[in-house]
């Protein structure tokens, strides 16, 4: 996207916040989803790691922030830091599993790790509340001044600002030599190592950062809704976020953001029309995207897009 385009995008985002105060909760949700999709974009779109369990880190972050808030550490920024640290730590450890093997192995390992975490959260009900969800969170005011209100004004502003800062960070990251080396690895890991890119170290770093960002997104959800349930670790969350990213465009910084806007607005609209068959629409959309090709759908809007990850 051109530079003026980026300005326009963020001005529109800010305008949406100020002009649509009644939809603040939706805006906060979109910002959370966008950050989650951005983190997956770093892992999948730039580093080329096919993950079917990215919700693991989202859920870890949500539970970390939620459990901290429940036990008297309700400062939101502290919660974010904690969530990022926990998710990044688990990401760093599990990245070692992801390094090995083909797409299929990665798919299985990420799915397996997410399933293990789901089972853990289910079993450790003294810590996580189990199937009932984590209740009685006591989230403090942001920066000690802005209390979360029922209308979600503070939540929306908070989520948008965190999203913006995280976005700037990722933008810096993917435009650095580090980001280019990730794309080199995605294109061809063998050739990348031949020109001196430390492939494994770069993949570990990208996966860890992606996990940490997903953790922050999870923490945002926990803090803005003041509730965490097992749903944050469920498989459909990993699948949904793939769809979000694919709608917007994989390997494109704004892909996750645009995808989150489209996805959430669609969800909002369709759940008013046919609340129970949301999955049917998701499924149809996924199949349509694959068969028709997202490039052909969105080529009209952005002619200079980065190509999707090659196999």
């Amino acid at each position, binding site marked *: 996207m051109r530079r003026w385009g980026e300005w326009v995008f963020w001005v529109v985002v800010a305008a949406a916040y100020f002009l649509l105060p009644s939809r603040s909760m939706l805006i906060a949700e979109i910002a959370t989803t966008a950050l989650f999709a951005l983190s997956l974009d770093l892992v999948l779109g730039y580093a080329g790691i096919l993950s079917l369990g990215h919700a693991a880190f989202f859920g870890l972050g949500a539970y970390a922030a939620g459990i901290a808030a429940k036990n008297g550490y309700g400062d939101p920024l502290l919660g974010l830091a904690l969530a990022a640290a926990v998710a990044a730590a688990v990401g760093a450890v599990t990245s070692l599993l992801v390094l*090995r093997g083909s797409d299929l192995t990665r*798919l299985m390992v990420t799915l397996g*790790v997410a399933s*293990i975490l789901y*089972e853990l959260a289910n079993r450790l009900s003294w810590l996580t509340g189990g199937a009932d969800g984590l209740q009685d969170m006591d989230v403090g005011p942001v920066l000690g001044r802005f209390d979360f209100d029922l209308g979600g004004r503070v939540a929306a502003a908070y989520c948008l600002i965190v999203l913006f800062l995280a976005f700037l960070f990722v933008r810096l990251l993917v435009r650095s030599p580090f980001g280019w080396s990730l794309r080199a690895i995605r294109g061809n890991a063998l050739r990348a190592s031949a020109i001196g890119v430390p492939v494994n170290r770069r993949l570990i770093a990208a996966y860890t950062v992606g996990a940490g960002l997903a953790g922050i997104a999870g923490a945002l959800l926990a803090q803005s809704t003041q509730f965490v349930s097992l749903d944050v670790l469920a498989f459909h969350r990993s699948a949904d976020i793939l769809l979000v990213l694919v709608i917007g465009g994989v390997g494109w910084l704004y892909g996750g953001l645009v995808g989150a806007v489209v996805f959430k607005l669609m969800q909002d609209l369709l759940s008013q029309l046919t609340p129970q068959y949301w*999955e049917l629409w998701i*499924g149809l959309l996924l199949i349509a995207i694959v068969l028709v090709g997202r490039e052909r759908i969105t080529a009209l809007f952005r002619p200079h897009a980065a190509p999707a990850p090659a*196999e």
Partner: protein
Amino acid sequence: MGEGASVVPQPPPLTPALSQRERGNRLGLMLTVLFDGVAYGMVLFILACGLAVTLGLMNLVNLAHGAFAMAGGYAAVVLVNRWGLPFLLALPLAFLASAVLGAVLERTLYVHIYARSHFEQVLFSIGLVFIAVAITDYFAGSQQVFVNVPDFLRARFEVAGVSVGAYRLLIIVICAVVALAIHLVLAHTRFGSRLRAAVDDPRVARGLGINVNLIFAVTFAVGSGLAGLGGALGAEILGLDPSFPLKFMIYFLIVVTVGGTASISGAFLASLLLGIADVAGKYYVPEVGAFVIYCVMVAVLIWRPQGLFGRVRLR
């Protein structure tokens, strides 16, 4: 569908009479657990063997395999419960229903994604799963359904102190016959050698006059049909509800990855191991139950990415 993929099926019920009457007889109990585990593993094999071929051999990441199994299971439910057909007749019909469904979807949809990237195949098949879940939910409701199994299959008898359920015995017999048939077809028939040739190198196979598309379509349909048969047979012990494809997706994938892609016997052994480990784990250590198989899977994938019984493919 909020429960996601990690919901684990309930352990197959063991005879309550046994645990009271023969509390001391640990060996008998162990053998019963083993027997149930074998039956469970056999069903998993029938369910997953189609995927072992499409994913393992044809390199098509089809996460929607469980949807065909679910179709077979629901076909059996409709045939037996609503139309009153005998259970044993419903089994081949469930096979046919899923096979036809598989053939139709293969010709209309899957044929477009063979050559796509794994990423696109994942998206596509997850989409199919979601549609299958929503459609089943719409027509059959979200509650768990059961096939009316005839009384003679509900019987239990004892063989040398081991309690044997007639239904599980039937499962083991049918699955063993099917497994043997699959092996014989793949290893000793012209179709089997053509399939292996088509998989190893489609271009050369085409050059030799093999109709690769037809072979793939037939294989896909038979694999789907077998999944349907497994769904009909296993509905009783696995539980059947609209989230079936998601619940068991990870089990099927474990069978394929742990078994490796080199041979069908690898998938067979992996299914048996998974079935026995799962039943025994849930029976003896219910508090860790579900972790065992996930951890084993991750460990196997790290230790041997090609699968326990696989060998490195030269392609």
